[in-house]
C-alpha cells in the first residue's frame, strides 16, 4: 500500500534541516551567536582596541606621520600636564551638573506622567517628551545659540541678564538635549511602582512628602541611576554643543577632536580619560541596580 506524498516539499525539507542541526548543538549556537559576536568583537571592541594601542605610539613632530614605536610618553603627558586635569575636571563637573538638572526635572515630570495624569494626557506627554528626539541635534544646538545670543530672546526678556555663551549655556543646552533619556527610564520606573504602596504609606500616617522621601525615591532611584548613565556618558563625549554655545570653553572631547588632526596618539591617550570615567561610573551604578533598569 502506498502512502500519498505530502502536499508540497516544504515540510519534509524543513524536517531535513531540523534533522541535520538537531544533534549539532554547537553548530546551531555558532550560527545564532556568530554574526553578532563578530560585530561586537571585531567592529566595536576592535575599534576601541586600535585606539588604545595607538595611545602608545607617537607622531613625528614635523610631518605628523605616526611613528610605530612603543612609548608611554602620551599617557605621561595626559597625567602630568595640568591642562588635561583642568579640562577633565571641568568636563566631569559639567556631566554631573547636567545629570543632576535632568534628574531634578525628570523626577516630578515622570511622577506626574505616570501617577497623576489621565491615560490620554499620559500619551500626549510621552509624545511631547520624545518629539525633540526627532529634530536634528544641530538644529537644537543652534536654537539655543540663538536664545543665548547677546541680542537674543533671553537677553531682551531678562533685560540683558543672560549668562551669554559659556559654561552655563553649555550645561543648559546639554541638559535640554539629554532630558528625554532621563525622563523615559524614570517614567518606566514609576510605572513599575505598585500604587498600593502610596495608600499603605498614607494609612500608616505618612505625609505626602514623607511618602515621596521614604517610599518613592528609594524605589525609583535605580531608574534615575539608569537614566543618569545616558546623561553622564553622552555629556562626557560631547564637543559639538559646547562648540556652538560654549563660547571659548573647551571640554575633554574638544581637546580630543583638536588633537586628533595633529597628534592622533595623544588624542587616543586623552580619550582614555572619559573612557575610565565611564567605566568607573558604570561600576558605581551597577551597585544601585541601575543596570537592570536600562
Amino acid at each position, binding site marked *: 500500500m502506498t502512502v500519498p506524498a505530502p502536499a508540497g516539499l516544504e515540510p519534509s525539507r524543513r524536517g531535513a534541516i531540523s534533522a541535520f542541526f538537531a544533534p549539532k548543538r554547537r553548530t546551531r549556537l555558532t550560527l545564532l551567536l556568530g554574526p553578532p559576536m563578530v560585530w561586537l568583537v571585531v567592529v566595536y571592541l576592535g575599534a576601541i582596541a586600535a585606539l588604545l594601542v595607538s595611545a602608545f605610539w607617537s607622531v613625528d613632530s614635523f610631518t605628523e606621520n605616526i611613528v610605530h*614605536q612603543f612609548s608611554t610618553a602620551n599617557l605621561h603627558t595626559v597625567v602630568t600636564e595640568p591642562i588635561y586635569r583642568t579640562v577633565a575636571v571641568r568636563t566631569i563637573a559639567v556631566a554631573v551638573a547636567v545629570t543632576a538638572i535632568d534628574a531634578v526635572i525628570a523626577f516630578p515630570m515622570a511622577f506626574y506622567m505616570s501617577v497623576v495624569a489621565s491615560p490620554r494626557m499620559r500619551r500626549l506627554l510621552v509624545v511631547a517628551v520624545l518629539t525633540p528626539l526627532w529634530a536634528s541635534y544641530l538644529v537644537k544646538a543652534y536654537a539655543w545659540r540663538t536664545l543665548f545670543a547677546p541680542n537674543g530672546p533671553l537677553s531682551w526678556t531678562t533685560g540683558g541678564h543672560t549668562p551669554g555663551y559659556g559654561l552655563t549655556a553649555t550645561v543648559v543646552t546639554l541638559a535640554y538635549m539629554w532630558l528625554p533619556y532621563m525622563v523615559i527610564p524614570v517614567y518606566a520606573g514609576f510605572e513599575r511602582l505598585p500604587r498600593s504602596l502610596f495608600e499603605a504609606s498614607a494609612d500608616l500616617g505618612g505625609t505626602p512628602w514623607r511618602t515621596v522621601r521614604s517610599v518613592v525615591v528609594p524605589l525609583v532611584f535605580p531608574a534615575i541611576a539608569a537614566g543618569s548613565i545616558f546623561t553622564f556618558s553622552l555629556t562626557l563625549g560631547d564637543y559639538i554643543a559646547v562648540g556652538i554655545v560654549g563660547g571659548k570653553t573647551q571640554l575633554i572631547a574638544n581637546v580630543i577632536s583638536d*588633537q586628533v588632526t595633529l*597628534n592622533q596618539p595623544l588624542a587616543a591617550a586623552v580619550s582614555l580619560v572619559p573612557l575610565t570615567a565611564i567605566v568607573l561610573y558604570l561600576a558605581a551604578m551597577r551597585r544601585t541596580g541601575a543596570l537592570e533598569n536600562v
Partner: protein
Amino acid sequence: MKRTLHSLRTPAALLAAGVLLAACASSGGGGDVSKRKVPDVPMAKSIGPGEGSLNIIVWAGYAEKAWVRPFEQQTGCTVNVKVGNTSDQMVSLMKSGQYDGVSASGDATLRLIYGGDVAPVNTKLIPNYATISSFLKNGDWNSVNGQMYGIPHGWGANLLMWDPRTVKGSLDSWSAVFDKAGTYDGKVTAYDSPIYIADAALYLMKTQPNLGIKDPYSLTSKQLDAAVALLKAQNKHVGEYWADYTKEVQAFESGTSVVGTTWQVIANTINSGAKTKVKTVLPKEGATGWSDTWMISAQAKHPNCMYKWMNYIVSPKANAQVAEYFGEAPAQTKACDQTSDPKFCDTYHALDAQYAAQIHYWTTPQQQCVDGSGNNCTNYSDWVTKWQEVKG
C-alpha cells in the same frame, strides 16, 4: 544585565593582550628635522584625459560655482569640494589619501612634502605657470632643491576686523585685541589654531623689542612663553574663538564678536549681507598671512583632472575671480588684467615683491629655527600644547 560588567573582563583581557602585541610589533622611526630627506614620490610626465571627477580640499572661497562650473564644462572633471578650516585639518585630510589635491598654506606645505603626502609638480605641464609672479616660485615653502611641489595660487595678510556699531573710531593696531582687549570685554575673537600664536609673537616683536623676537615663527621657549602670556591675558576678554569661517561671519552678524583677526573673504561675506557692515585694516605692526599653493596628492586617484585644475585655477580669468572673491593678491600676473575692479591688483600690491616680503607668512615652526637663527626654537607640537593651555 547584571553580568554586563563581568562579561567585560574577557574583552578587557583581549585589549591588554592587543596592547602588548602592538608594543612588541612596533618598529623604529622618527628623526631629526634638519637632516630630513624628502620621500621619493614620482612626478607626472604627461597629462592624459581627465578621469571624470576631482576631490579637492580648499580654503573657504577658493572653489565657488562661478569658476568651478566652467572648469567642469571644459574638462568633464566633476569637482567635489571639501572646505578645510585650518592647516592642521587640511594636513590630516590629505593623509587620509582620499583627496587629489589641496590649496595648502605655508604652514602645511612642508609637512606634506616631507611627509610624502604630496608629489612634486611638473611645471612644464602647466602652461599658466610661466606667467606666475616670480617671487612666488621656488620659495622655501613650496619647493625643495629647486623642485616645485605645487603651483602658487595667491597670498595675503590676516587682517584686523571690527564692527563700527560697537567699536568707535578707526583701528590701526593689533593692540585692540591684545593690550586694549578689555575695552571690548567678552566680544573679542581670535583664530582657533596654534598658528595664531605667531600673531601674538609679531605684536611682541614690535612692542617689546627687549624680548628679541626676530621672526614670529622662530621662538625660543622664553619668547613662546611671553606670547602665551599675552594670549592668556587676551583669553579673558575673548567671547568665542573661530576656526570655521562661517562661525566668525555669524558671530559678527549677531554681535557676539565685535573685533578680531579675520580674512578679507569673511569681511566680504558679512558686508554682502544686510545684518551689519564691518571694517578691516592691515595694522601698523604688520601681519601674519598666507601664501597658498595647489599641491597634488601622492595618492591622487584623478591626477589628470588635478593637473588640469592646477592649470585652470591659475589661468588669468579664474585666478582673478578667486582673488577678488577671497580678497587676496593673485599669483598670476596676467590676472590683473582680468579683475572686475581695474585697481584690484594695486590695492592688494599683487605685483609688488617688496610688499609681499613684509608679510609674515604662515610656516611650520621647527626646532631648527625657520629664520635660520639657530636650533633652539620651539617646534609646532610645543605650540599645539601651549595653544591648548591658552584656551584653558
